[in-house]
Structure formats: structure tokens, C-alpha cells
């Protein structure tokens, strides 16, 4: 009766909307970077995201199997537009009780370090 909504793309191909268009991940995890990312995450993000449980927002565990690195960084850096316009972020916003993802004003460099930390959460 209704036209099928846009066929959900392969989530791994969705880079999201925001300043990050291309991220290259090193073959190995950069441990120093990941450690910095962990510390940023604990101050800026951990009030809503727990590693081992669904909390205010989803757990970042294994996120790089579900989302592209660009999407993750754009979600951190540009949450207002993402929850309005990106189909995956929109669905998550509804699923998580319409609790808005807070823009914690991370720099791109900080967001990249958080991403590196997420690589350690398998």
C-alpha cells in the first residue's frame, strides 16, 4: 500500500552526514591513541554509553562490525543533523526513547581517538 521505504543500504556503506568523509584505519590498533580515546570517552560519553549494557544510548561494543568508521565519527561530531537526517541514526533515536545524543563538542582529532578506542571493544 505504501511504497517501500528506501531499501536500507548496507550499513557498513553508510558514512553518515557530517565533516568526516574518509577514515583510514591502521592495520594494527594504535594503543596510545586508543588509551587517549578511552579517557575522552570516560569523561565525555560514559554518562550515557556503557560498554557492557544498553543504557541511555547503545553500547559501543563491536560497533565497527555494525557501522562504518565515518558514520561513528559523524555521529559523535554532528549528532543533531544525524538524528534528523540519517536513516540509521533516526531509527536509533526512536529506539532509545527519543533521548537526544548530546553534542559534546569533541574535535575531529578527539573523535578519531575515541574511534580507535572502539576498535579495542570487540
Amino acid at each position, binding site marked *: 500500500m505504501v511504497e517501500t521505504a528506501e531499501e536500507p543500504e548496507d550499513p557498513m556503506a553508510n558514512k553518515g552526514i557530517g565533516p568526516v568523509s574518509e577514515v583510514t584505519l591502521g592495520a594494527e590498533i594504535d594503543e596510545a591513541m586508543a588509551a587517549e580515546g578511552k579517557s575522552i570517552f*570516560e*569523561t*565525555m560519553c*560514559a*554518562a*550515557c554509553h556503557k560498554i557492557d549494557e544498553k*543504557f*541511555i544510548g547503545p553500547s559501543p561494543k563491536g560497533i565497527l562490525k555494525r557501522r562504518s568508521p565515518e558514520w561513528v565519527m559523524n555521529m559523535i561530531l554532528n549528532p543533531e543533523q544525524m538524528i534528523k537526517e540519517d536513516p540509521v541514526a533516526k531509527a536509533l533515536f526512536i529506539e532509545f*526513547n*527519543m*533521548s*537526544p545524543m*548530546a*553534542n*559534546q*563538542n*569533541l574535535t575531529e582529532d578527539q573523535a578519531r581517538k575515541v574511534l580507535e578506542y572502539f576498535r579495542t571493544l570487540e
Partner: protein
Amino acid sequence: MLTLTGLFVFSACKNGMKQNSGILNNQSAAQKVYVAPGEHDEYYAFFSGGFSGQVSVYGLPSGRLLKIIPVFSVDAEKGYGFNEETKPMLNTSFGFVPWDDAHHPELSQTNGIPDGRWLFINGNNTPRIAKLDLSTFETTEIIEIPNSGGNHSSPFTTENSEYVVAGTRFSVPFPQKDVAIGSYKDNFKGALSFIKLDEDGHMDIAFQVLVPGYDYDLAHSGKGKSHGWTFFTTYNSEQSHTLKEINASQNDKDFIAAVNWKKAEEYLAQGKAQDYPTEYLINRYDEHSHTSTSITRNSVKVLIPEECPGLIYYLPTPKSPHGVDVDPTGEYIVGNGKLSADLTVHSFDKMMTAIANEAFEETIDGIPVLKFEEVLAGTVSSGGLGPLHTEFDADGNAYTTFFISSEVVKWKVGSWEVLDRAPCYYSVGHLMIPGGDSKKPWGKYLVALNKITKDRYLPTGPEMNHSAQLYDISGDKMEMLLDFPTVGEPHYGQGIAADVIKNRSKKIYPLNDNTHPHNIKSEAEARVERDGDVVRIYMTSIRSHFAPDNIEGIKVGDKVYVHLTNLEQDWDTPHGLSIMGARNAELLVMPGQTETLYWEPQKPGVYPFYCTDFCSALHQEMQGYIRVSEATSDIKLSWSLGESI
């Protein structure tokens, strides 16, 4: 429709000729003050709140209220003076004083031009000067002025904000002591205080000049050629202490005191100042620790004119001069004789010549009185009554308010010719032109700050907000554009081009820079600690929950400090905190800031607390409970978020 418009235009033209009003004129005025939704005003205007003790920030030309900044009075809306961090800001040598009467905002200057760094404002009643940081729009420093009473001729700044000044309106025993009021002429003295700003912008009193026991009413510092001098008006040179309404108006002339502060610096360096024991406080707020501290000073340096020749002169000025205003060139010093129809204008060059020639009428307590005719540049015969204050535009014109005849009069600096006059509704006090008391006025607009409102707006009972009126002064004739109510008494104002300030305005406090002694930087650190009967709750907020949000083990009689750190790092995401029954205000915590609510629970029960500032769709869920037990109970201190204790 076309026909209708045509008719209106026709009739407006017919009537408009005579009255300078009517639809066409109103439409043009409306267009000039219209700032479209989402657009920004061209100027910031800072108006004092007078007896509200605060500063209100408006946009011009729209007349939109942007913010009220708490300064000398507690403000429950923002928790100012209620939270532990800002209570010290209102400390004085008399203890905590939660109110003052704020009169003259003054923007800091660089090279005589308002630079948008700070706004100073005086507290009249318990003499103080506050400094507001215009990157955060917060009060960051308040200094008390000793040996003073009614700090009215304040806080006018020098060309590079080397100093702000504070002259006493009431002379008082100097230093304070218990004497008969009738011994006024023997015991009462005036103090002209110079408050120096150090490299970090911190204020402290550099020196006071001990002057005869008159009333020192207003001030302005010299600029350009007169940089290095500050001028104070005096009245009550009769030295009356009762029924001043009559007794302070007997002399035909009072004085403008001219203080050579560069000379004062020389005398200070030579060790000519005397140390007078006294007590005054300096309260400083630090935007990184988000806390304020009070420093006590126990002496002040005093320069005595008899011992310091060349430090100060008196310029005779008719009829109890009120405002003293220096034109943008620094040459003309305008004395607004409030019981007169005329303005007296002195010449700085003539003053310097008179000093060199020792053209003195007499000497009072070591202060030479210059001969009136030797310093007079001219008189503006205004036709108005009760001149109070003068400001300037960028084209060599001056604008003076007349309280009694309720009008602004425009006149030409140098020729003293009256060019235009416009009525005010009603009884105008100060006026404000953006940059109008500086070396480079922006001009364009003039705001009349009126004392009486009466029928200007919808009535609101016996008390009404004071009215302000905005005029376009870009043409030959002043044109009234807008009439708007203000907060408290808008005693004086300052205006500045918006661009100077708006790009420096901070959006958040970075969490990483937070050095509050009781901050926490993540939810993982959230906890409750007991030390005797002192309980500290280390709490965080983020949309939309507090951590912890369930707390047990608090007892009646405990002294509870809730240290709330707002973990948000986005613009305009404050969280509030209030606790049922707390005999205190709320907290309103900006992103990255820590603030503390003090609470003494009175009786056992379970106390809800919640966020007071609507923060997200789940704001109504941003709440928690604190269980309070009898003092003797053995309920263990515990806390949680997301699970049962």
C-alpha cells in the same frame, strides 16, 4: 487595497506636515527598529538596574531584552548569591550584603574606545565597584571602597582602563569613627578613590585623595590631550548635613574637581602617600575553578592635597553641577548645573594656562580654586531646565538631558548653538549614545533613560518599570523611534557595536579546564561522602539524568553540599537542580561548570529533586530521590543510578 493605501498616504501627508507623526512616519520608525526573527541587533546596550542591583543587556535598535546579569543583588533565577560558589561575591567588611543600588555601567576602553572586555558598575549604598567579564557576561570581581558613602561618582574609566574611579557622594568621618553629626565641618571628609587594574585585570585601590567634605556627584576622565586627568563634580560645598534640599543649594557655584592622576602616581612613587588603617574586601570569581574568594585589605594609601601640590584643582561651576562630561577631543569639560537653565563648558587648555599662571581665587584645604572666567570656554543657553548629563555623537554635536523640562537638547560643541530639541516621556535622567562618552562615539542612536513612566504602557498597578526611549540621531533632527520598559531603574547605560563583543562570547566552559575543588569529570566518580555531619554529594548531569539519582543515609541535622558538575559540552545546555524544602534557591549550572547547593534537611522523609531548566524531551524524567532519616538512624550511606540501592 491599492486605493486604501493611496488614501492613507494622502491623509498622512496632509497631517504629517504639522505633527511629524502619522502613518508614514510611524512606518518608517517601525522599519528602523525592526530586527527580523533570527537576525541580530546592531548594538549591545547595557543598562544598570538601579535599585534592582543588576545589569540588563538589551539589543538596539530593537529594544529586545537579552539578559539580566546579577551583580550586587542575589538572583534566585541563576542561583547567584545562593550557591556556595558565588556567596563570597557579596561579602563586604559589614558581612554578606545581598543588595545594592547599581548606577553607572562603564565599558573598559583601549585608546579611549570601548573595547568590549569588561563592564564596570558601581554599587552606591555599600560602596563597591563590580567588574563583569563580557566574554561570559558574568560578574567576576567586586571591590569595596572604604572611607566612602554613596559611591555615586563611579566607576568612570581612564583612556586605557588604567583606573576606574570612585568619588564619595556622602562625606563621612575619614577614617570612620563615632562622632556627633553636628561636627560635620570638623570631622567629615570626602575620598576620591583610584582603583587600578593590573595586567590580569584585577582591581585594587591604588590611592585615595582626601578632599573637603562636599558631595562628589559624578565623574569622567580626560581623553586625548586631557588624558591623565579625572574630573569630579561637587555640590554641597556649603557642607550642610541636614535639609540638604535647601541647605546644599545656597552657594551660587560649587566646583568641578580636576585630579591629575599622573601627578598622583609620581607622589606615590615618592612615598608621599600616608597609610590609613581601614578594612575593605575584594571578591574575585575564577571561571576555571567556578568559585569566588574574598581578600581582606587593612590599609589604604591616602594623598593629602596640602602635601601634594599640583594634584588637584577646583573649577568653579554654577548651580550644583551634576554630570561632568568630556567631549571626544578631550578639550571641553561640560558641567551640567542641575538647578540652572544653562550649561557651563570649561576649556582644558584654558585650565592648563590658568594653572601655569596661578590664576587662583583662593585655596581650600590645599586645593587651588581656579578663576571661573579663566577656565570658562562658553555657556550653552539651552532654554531647558535642569540639565543633568551630556553625551556626544561622531559629528561634533552634544546632547544634554533636562530633567525638569523633560527633553533632550542637541547643541554644537564650540559654537554652543542649540540645534534641536526632543521631548522625553518623562523626566529623563541619563542618556546613552553608543560610545557617547568615549573618544570615538558610534552615534546613530540615542537612548533617553527616564525616571517617570506613568501612562506610557498598559498600567501595572502603582509600580511600573521605568521607560526608555530610542531616538535616531543620524539626521539633523532627532526622531523618536521606540519606547520600551526597562528593569528596575535604568540609571545609566553604555552601548557598543555588537561585533566588538559577540565574536568573543563563550559558548561553554570546557570540562577539561574545570579546576573546581569538588568537581568530578565522569559519572564513574559520582559518589557521596560523609565527614561527621558534613555530607558531600558529588553529582553529574547530562541529558537527561543525574548521577546518582537515588541516595540514602542522609540524616536530619546533616550539612549537605550537593556539588553538581554539568558534563554537557554543547552551547545552551544548562541543567538546574532543586531539592524539596531546601531553604535555598536552585542551581543553574552551565555546560562544564560545577556549582554547589547547600541544604540542611529538617525532617525525615524522602525528598524529590529535579532539573529546573527544560533540557530535552525527557526533562520531566530528570529527577531523583534523597532519603532523609532520623539523626539516630543507622541507615548506611549509599547511592545508585539505574538500579535499586
